[in-house]
């Protein structure tokens, strides 16, 4: 098949024509979904802000369903498709396998997304993205999601096919790069996830058209969360890969140890928790042994993997900076990092926010008994806005500052605003997550239209602090929406009006990755002079550990104070 390869003059990255188009279109569609998700976020936050309470109940639940679906499925998945094509075709410098199929997958995802949104905005499918049975949505709600999943599965096939093409065409020597390896773990997990998803969404679709009589509520939750949780493991694998990518592009950072980083990715696959127990910890139909086994054995190895990446990513940056001569004290490497480069600042806020807020809160929430203090409270969306937004979304936003000039060949407009954007979004979103968790700790429910319970036969007055937290949620939520909107304006503005950049030379043959001499020698040697100590990272990691331990035990203390349960 005839195709061409373009070598970007500024980054040296080589884009194959088909892959380049697919990446662009997936990214653009992702951004459009983020726009819809952002508008719905504003409406959600203005309704949950007790002083404003914008929407009536029916519209609130409809909009919240749209927010969940369009953000966590549509925006994230489309962007991840672009990441997968980048990690395979671009990094391995080979042609994309079966571009026609890739376009088929893309269109399936687009059509499915639109279909699902039509169902939601018709108003008969306000079931939230979890669509717990026996609450029923319109058939095209489920069908839309199924089409998106099938489209994503096709994209995954193309990704794996491209790895094979690169191997066959010998465009690289030795092993695939770490970022590609990380993307591959994401893709493997995604394949399992989508199959579990088929296992629950297809029966649910059949039930919605009347072909199946009943679906057991507990069984649904178990299989649904095999989809729902593993897909978060995809996001983690994807955004960790993006962290390594950013560190490599900006600092030329090299992993501290290929072995450790790859092993940590492997742990994600091995312990991706098909059982997804920690969403079922306060459910009736599962035994305590099952819960403990699944949360500890399966989850803590995945946690360990994240803790390893949390060490090796900043460690790689520190090592690279120290080699450049920033060796004073513990943190000169960090102080002298390019904080004015939004690709770096966004990536670093994503890393720290994900570790300190998302990671710690997630593990605490996933502790069998402690879960009872937080299950279904506002703590839960607080937690995952620090993982999937501060972690994944912000990582994707910051890599876009690199992709616009290289992939779209446009200069970013308004560089001063670009500099501010990651701080505005990252910090407000982190605070939003914290105050949401605060409200949840005080008991405030998620997915709840009115904390004053108007129309209920009784009254219950939340503590004043809960109202305070919800007010802060409103304020920081609005700021976060502004930060997100700014990113969309900057990116779309640059695509339309940014200065056109030189695309670089185009050739009809790929230029293989030059083999480097050390790799060719293929002898293992310890590389002593290459080794740099990373004391600053050690201090950061120990701070994380201490925070983690303290917060973990504080929650056991809270638990010991509630009614006795057995």
């Amino acid at each position: 098949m005839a195709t061409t390869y373009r070598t970007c003059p500024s980054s040296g990255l080589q884009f194959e024509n088909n892959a380049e188009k697919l990446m662009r279109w997936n990214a653009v569609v992702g951004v459009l979904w983020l726009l819809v998700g952002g508008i719905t976020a504003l409406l959600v936050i203005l309704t949950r802000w007790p002083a404003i309470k914008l929407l009536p109940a029916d519209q609130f639940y409809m909009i919240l369903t749209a927010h969940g679906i369009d953000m966590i499925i549509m925006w994230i998945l489309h962007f991840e498709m672009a990441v997968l094509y980048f990690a395979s075709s671009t990094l391995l410098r080979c042609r994309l396998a079966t571009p026609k199929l890739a376009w088929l997958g893309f269109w399936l995802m687009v059509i499915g997304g639109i279909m699902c949104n039509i169902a939601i905005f018709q108003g008969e499918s306000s079931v939230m993205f979890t669509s717990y049975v026996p609450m029923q949505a319109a058939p095209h709600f489920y069908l839309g999601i199924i089409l998106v999943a099938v489209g994503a599965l096709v994209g995954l096939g193309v990704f794996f096919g491209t790895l094979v093409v690169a191997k066959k065409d010998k465009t690289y020597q030795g092993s695939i790069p770490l970022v590609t390896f990380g993307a591959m773990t994401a893709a493997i997990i995604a394949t399992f996830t989508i199959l579990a998803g088929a296992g629950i969404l297809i029966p649910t679709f059949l039930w919605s058209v009347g072909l199946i009589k009943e679906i057991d509520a507990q069984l649904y939750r178990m299989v649904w969360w095999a989809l729902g949780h593993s897909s978060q493991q995809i996001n983690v694998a994807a955004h960790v890969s993006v962290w390594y990518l950013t560190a490599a592009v900006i600092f030329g950072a090299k992993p501290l140890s290929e072995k450790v980083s790859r092993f940590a990715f492997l742990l994600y696959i091995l312990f991706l928790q098909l059982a997804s127990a920690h969403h079922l910890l306060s459910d009736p139909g599962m035994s305590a042994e099952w819960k403990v086994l699944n949360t500890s054995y399966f989850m803590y190895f995945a946690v360990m993997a994240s803790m390893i990446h949390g060490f090796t990513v900043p460690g790689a940056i520190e090592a690279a900076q120290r080699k450049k001569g920033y060796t004073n004290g513990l943190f000169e490497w960090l102080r002298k990092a390019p904080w004015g480069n939004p690709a770096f600042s966004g990536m670093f806020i994503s890393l720290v926010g994900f570790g300190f807020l998302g990671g710690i809160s997630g593990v605490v929430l996933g502790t069998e008994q402690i879960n009872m203090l937080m299950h279904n409270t506002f703590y839960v969306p607080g937690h995952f806005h620090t993982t999937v937004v501060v972690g994944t979304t912000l990582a994707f936003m910051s890599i876009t500052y690199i992709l616009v000039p290289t992939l779209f060949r446009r200069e970013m407009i308004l560089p001063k605003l670009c500099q501010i954007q990651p701080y505005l979004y990252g910090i407000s979103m982190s605070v939003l997550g914290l105050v949401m968790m605060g409200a949840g700790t005080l008991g405030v429910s998620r997915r709840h239209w009115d904390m004053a319970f108007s129309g209920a036969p009784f009254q219950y007055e939340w503590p004043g602090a809960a109202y305070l937290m919800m007010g802060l949620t409103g304020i920081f939520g609005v700021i976060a929406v502004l930060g997100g909107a700014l990113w969309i304006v900057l990116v779309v503005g640059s695509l339309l009006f940014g200065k056109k950049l030189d695309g670089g030379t185009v050739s009809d043959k790929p230029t293989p990755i030059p083999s480097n001499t050390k790799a060719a020698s293929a002898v293992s040697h310890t590389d002593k002079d290459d080794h740099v100590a990373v004391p600053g990272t050690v201090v950061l990691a120990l701070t994380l550990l201490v925070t983690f331990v303290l917060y973990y035990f504080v929650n056991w203390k809270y638990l010991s104070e509630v009614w006795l349960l057995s």
Partner: protein
Amino acid sequence: MSAILPPSERLWWKQPIDKVEWAWIGIAFVWGMIMFVMMVYWHVYGKQNLSNEAYKTTPEMFAAKAEKFIAENTVRTETDLQIPVVKVPAGGDGYLIARLWNWYPILELEKGQTYKIHLSSMDYQHGFSLQPVNINIQVLPGYEHVVKMTPTKSGTYAIVCNEYCGIGHHTMLGRIYVK
């Protein structure tokens, strides 16, 4: 060279791992084990564990048991809706129905006594969220969950529904009295 190029050491898996990295992996592993042991420890010595006792049921079967319990133990009714206030026998069984959109009936408990509270839903999924204690338990249709509870303080408690259950979700507020 870097994370976007093939590893410069072709035999990267033979490269030694730095001491500091080993130490961090070790710490992460040990911390995981501690967290595992904590959950088991709490099952043995802790006083707040979610009950494992659950049965398959149907809305009809559960409603029948609950109605019998209400008929035998009602002490008075409250509000214009004449919601029964039911005194659960000390150490005995109490039934709480979750349905669109109320928790039924009102339960009356005594401080320091242990009760077996049976929870189930008549329709959609609901969330038992006891406030201001902040205990949260999922309630499913088709499952009867028997939770042993011992109130530690007297007062008037609210049961908020915290699993989205439709347009009237926010009106689904129940009550428990502890004497």
